[in-house]
């Protein structure tokens, strides 16, 4: 147990005991979810190839109640761990986070069908010669991946950037099972890379890297939803934290290019660019961004045509969707409306613009551009009518490397509200 003890702050015996308890709960909750999910036949699992068959037979079918209880236990243990993070050693933190991520990696895809859309788009381009920016997976009805794509997305062309699509193309040629493992490995590596960069940025800025690692790497939504669903948001955060690390090293042009690279995975991260430019007020980040953009436009246009570089169209399309967990939808219910109306979308956009303008002004007057970027990403997820749990992860790595701790508190509060919103099946089970 000595390995859990930080050198500079030897914890009291009860602190040590609580840390061990929290660690055991984190591991047990993750194992419970993964092993139960490996039994299959759960509404929490998308239909998928049985790549996890070797884990079957240990758990029981994953139901809502067990999943939610495990998620709440995970969240409680997470809160305890970050509350006691000063007493955690580097080695303990790294081993814990690695164990959580590896457990999820070897299990089935959790909660979301998105990864099968990623594979379908890759197979459309590689196996069928069909442009995924102009066609939905419905164009490859006979392909073995088709039956795994979420029903809502069968007719929807890809909303992801051309860099991500090109990155996924090699996986489109190795069969569905190989591609699925490839996507899971990609998400795991992106998560590990993001955590390493978060560690580095925290240390450069004089923050406790162990706390930063635990806040992001042991976060329940990061582990269960982000990594569990093998979401490409983790690749986006990798480029995002790459931009922050490069900027902290004084390399503004590559930092801006990294933001553009992230944008070409998922467009949301473009929100960092104006803050980066305003904070530095130099030509270098502008030139870096323009060079990366020009290169991407040429490659994107050459491979995918005009639709491959029209990221705004995809953003506008997805912005019109409404998910039951979005805060605008909850607010609409609070005021007695059945849901979000088009006029609400306009109001939300106007509110977001005001927030961004205020943050730009603050950045111009010396506020930390990284914090301003984090607030913007958080504001985007809160005002979005299409909120999914992994969207609340965007601001998290930024929040642990800034002095303004309100950002971290707000990000964790939003995540907590998301989890609270899920617990109805525990209070009144349906059966």
């Amino acid at each position, binding site marked *: 147990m000595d390995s859990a003890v930080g050198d500079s702050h030897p914890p009291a015996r009860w602190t040590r005991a609580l840390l061990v308890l929290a660690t055991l709960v984190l591991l047990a909750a993750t194992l419970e979810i993964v092993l139960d999910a490996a039994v299959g036949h759960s509404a*929490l699992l998308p239909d998928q190839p049985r790549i996890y068959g070797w884990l079957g037979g240990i758990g029981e079918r994953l139901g809502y109640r067990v999943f939610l209880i495990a998620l709440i236990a995970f969240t409680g243990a997470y809160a305890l761990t970050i509350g006691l993070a000063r007493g955690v050693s580097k080695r303990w933190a790294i081993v814990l986070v690695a164990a959580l991520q590896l457990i999820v990696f070897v299990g089935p895809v959790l909660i*979301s069908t998105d990864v099968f859309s990623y594979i379908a788009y890759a197979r459309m381009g590689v196996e069928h010669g069909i442009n995924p920016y102009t066609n939905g997976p419905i164009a490859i009805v006979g392909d073995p991946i088709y039956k795994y794509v979420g*029903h809502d997305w069968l007719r929807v062309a890809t909303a992801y950037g051309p860099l991500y699509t090109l990155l996924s193309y090699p996986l489109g040629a190795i069969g569905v099972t190989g591609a699925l493992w490839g996507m899971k490995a990609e998400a795991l590596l992106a998560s590990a890379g993001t955590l390493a960069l978060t560690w580095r940025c925290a240390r450069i800025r004089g923050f406790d890297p162990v706390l930063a690692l635990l806040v992001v790497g042991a976060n329940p939504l990061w582990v269960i939803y982000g990594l569990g669903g093998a979401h490409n948001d983790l690749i986006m955060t990798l480029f995002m934290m790459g931009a922050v690390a490069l900027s902290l090293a004084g390399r503004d042009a590559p930092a801006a290019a990294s933001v553009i690279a992230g944008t070409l995975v998922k467009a949301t991260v473009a929100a960092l660019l104006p803050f980066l430019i305003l904070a530095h007020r130099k030509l270098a980040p502008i030139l870096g961004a323009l060079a990366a953009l020009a290169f991407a436009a040429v490659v994107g246009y050459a491979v995918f045509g005009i639709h491959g570089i029209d990221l705004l169209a995809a953003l506008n399309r997805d912005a019109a969707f409404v998910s039951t967990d979005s*805060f605008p*939808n*909850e607010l609409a219910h609070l005021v007695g409306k059945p849901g*979000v109306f088009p006029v609400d979308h306009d109001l939300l956009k106007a509110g977001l613009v005001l927030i961004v303008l205020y943050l730009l002004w603050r950045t111009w*007057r010396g506020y930390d551009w990284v914090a301003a970027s984090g607030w913007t990403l958080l504001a985007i997820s809160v005002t979005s009518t299409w909120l999914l749990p992994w969207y609340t992860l965007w601001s998290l790595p930024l929040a642990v490397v800034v002095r303004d701790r309100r950002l971290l508190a707000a990000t964790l509060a939003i995540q907590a509200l998301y989890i609270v919103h899920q617990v109805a099946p525990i209070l009144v*089970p349906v059966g």
Partner: protein
Amino acid sequence: MSDVASKIDGAGEIDGGRWKFLPEWLRPRDSELAGTGRRRLVEVTLLILAGLLLAVATVNDLIEQTHVNHRINADLLTWREYTGHDYKNVSTEQDLYGHTTRDVVCGNTTPGPPKERVQLCLLMTGPIVDGRRAVHGGWYLRPKVEDVPIYRYACFGTATPTRFCGKAAAASAAAADAAERGESAPAERGEGAPAEAGR
């Protein structure tokens, strides 16, 4: 005097004095002034108010969901008692948009996989009494079809054929859908199983 002030607050020499033409309050800065804390107070107050609003909305939605779950349980129990079949796979569809208490509960009339047999759908409305709800009408459905008017037959009770069953009902439902789209009704996705949601 102004030069002295500029050097004190560190703003005048920013970017080699490139921004000197701007009034002080418009010039960029490398770091923020300490200030009196009033702005921070305003920001924190706004954040707390926004957080409280979101928390109230979340809890309100959670309570609504528990009420819905309670109603679904009553619907399932009612369907099983009404039909005398203790089947597990019985589907419920609630009037989420209209915010009425009208639910449609469908299940097979003979044992078999979901929707693989003739289905009986019951129309339930009103409050929950002793864990059950009142059945006001219903219809039958052919096997392997969705519950849409064109596939319904043998409507009974308040489920009048012109409103709920057959081609006439299908035509009026299509007209109502078109009118609803014209009125920009709320679009909602992701209501199904969580595994379906994404992006």
